[in-house]
């Protein structure tokens, strides 16, 4: 974690304005009737507005672009556009870079979740395994120096669950309780479900 600002502080100014607008858009975008493409368009407009407002402040510009890219990947993981879209959104994030380890963990989880849904475990594991290994090293170091292990355990928990799902998928086994694109498409093509006589 590299954020030097006090997390308990109130946001203000441009940061508060961006977050208010972005969070409102996120709620709107999560609506089932709102398409992924519409949501992306909304967020790109928001990006253009706040990048313009940032002027020459490179930090504001960079971080605004990162937040927008992160939101688009989050929405891809939620709304399930074709896998290629999720992959491109992930590449966009990697290109922009991660602001801190928390961002890397959350976004890696989102991309790996896309991989799980589209049954592409190798690509998901290629992202997750090095990250998990790095966090486990940090955890061991924290234990060895009797420092707090909370951060590492906190980040590892969801990543390990998803890693195990992907390993199960790679072995050819179904993941209980987890939906995939194939399952969803099969459901839609079932006569009883889509109304086909």
């Amino acid at each position, binding site marked *: 974690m590299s954020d030097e600002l006090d997390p308990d502080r*109130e946001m203000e100014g441009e940061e*508060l304005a961006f977050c208010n607008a972005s*969070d409102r858009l996120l709620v709107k975008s999560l609506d089932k009737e709102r398409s992924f493409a519409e949501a992306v368009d909304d967020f790109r407009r928001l990006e253009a507005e706040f990048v313009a407002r940032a002027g020459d402040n490179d930090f504001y510009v960079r971080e605004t672009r990162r*937040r927008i890219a992160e939101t688009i990947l989050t929405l891809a993981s939620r709304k399930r556009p074709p896998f290629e879209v999720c992959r491109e959104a992930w590449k*966009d994030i990697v290109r922009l870079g991660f*602001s801190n380890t*928390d961002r890397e963990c959350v976004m890696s989880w989102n991309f790996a979740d896309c991989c799980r849904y589209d049954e592409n475990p190798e690509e998901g594991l290629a992202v997750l395994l090095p990250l998990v290994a790095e966090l486990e090293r940090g955890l061991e170091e924290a234990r060895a120096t009797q420092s707090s292990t909370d951060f590492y355990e906190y*980040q590892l928990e969801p990543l390990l669950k998803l890693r195990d799902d992907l390993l199960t998928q790679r072995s050819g086994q179904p993941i209980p309780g987890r939906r995939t694109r194939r399952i969803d498409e099969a459901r839609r093509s079932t006569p009883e479900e889509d109304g086909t006589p």
Partner: protein
Amino acid sequence: MTSPRVRTLVSLGLLGSATTAFVPLGCGAKITYPAASEGPRVPDATAERLRECVDEFGGDLARGYYVFDAAVKVDEEGRVVDVASKGVPHADLAGCMRLALRAMTVPEDLLRLRKLRLSESPAPANGQTPAERGLVGNPAVLVAVAIALADLIIEAGPVIVVIAASVELGKSDIAKTARKKDDDDDPCQEHLNDCLDSALQSKKGSVWNHSRCRTCFEKCRGDGKWPDKIMMSKWETCK
């Protein structure tokens, strides 16, 4: 739709001679449209995004012209569901431009064109009027209409990228796939609404430009339930 090769030659010819509409830009790359270009244009927001891609990656290309042929598939409600492309020998630039097109909002007039086209009786493609030059449907089946957009030319120093995009409107397996509704309820969504209605809405999240509520929402997605607290530089409440 005019063949990509013909469109390319026309575009490059027009580029050299036409009085073009220049869009002033803050960065290096600039957008032009051939003055005699026909057909609907890429929306301004998308054009700007494409320009940013060229601005960022165009420097990696050798001097010359590049034609980015893109076929944008759109479902019946105007949502972009797929972008196929070729012609730019730079993976990051191509990916960036595909993502920009993927996010495009299809102009209403294009959707109206499709409705108009579908309501007409089938006509041979070679019987088109000049006004229909950009439209090529499938007269036998009439389930899709492809519309050529006006070429968009982006200049970045010695590199010129011509974006020759077409929009295919209609039914497709991909479109059907993308139209699916998520019927699994998101347990995190309602909590996010509640959080944004609370005093936490103005609290900072894990990074700059990121709210506490958003950080809690992301943790919820990973864990499947709204967290009591999240770990930043210290534990912070989500409730």
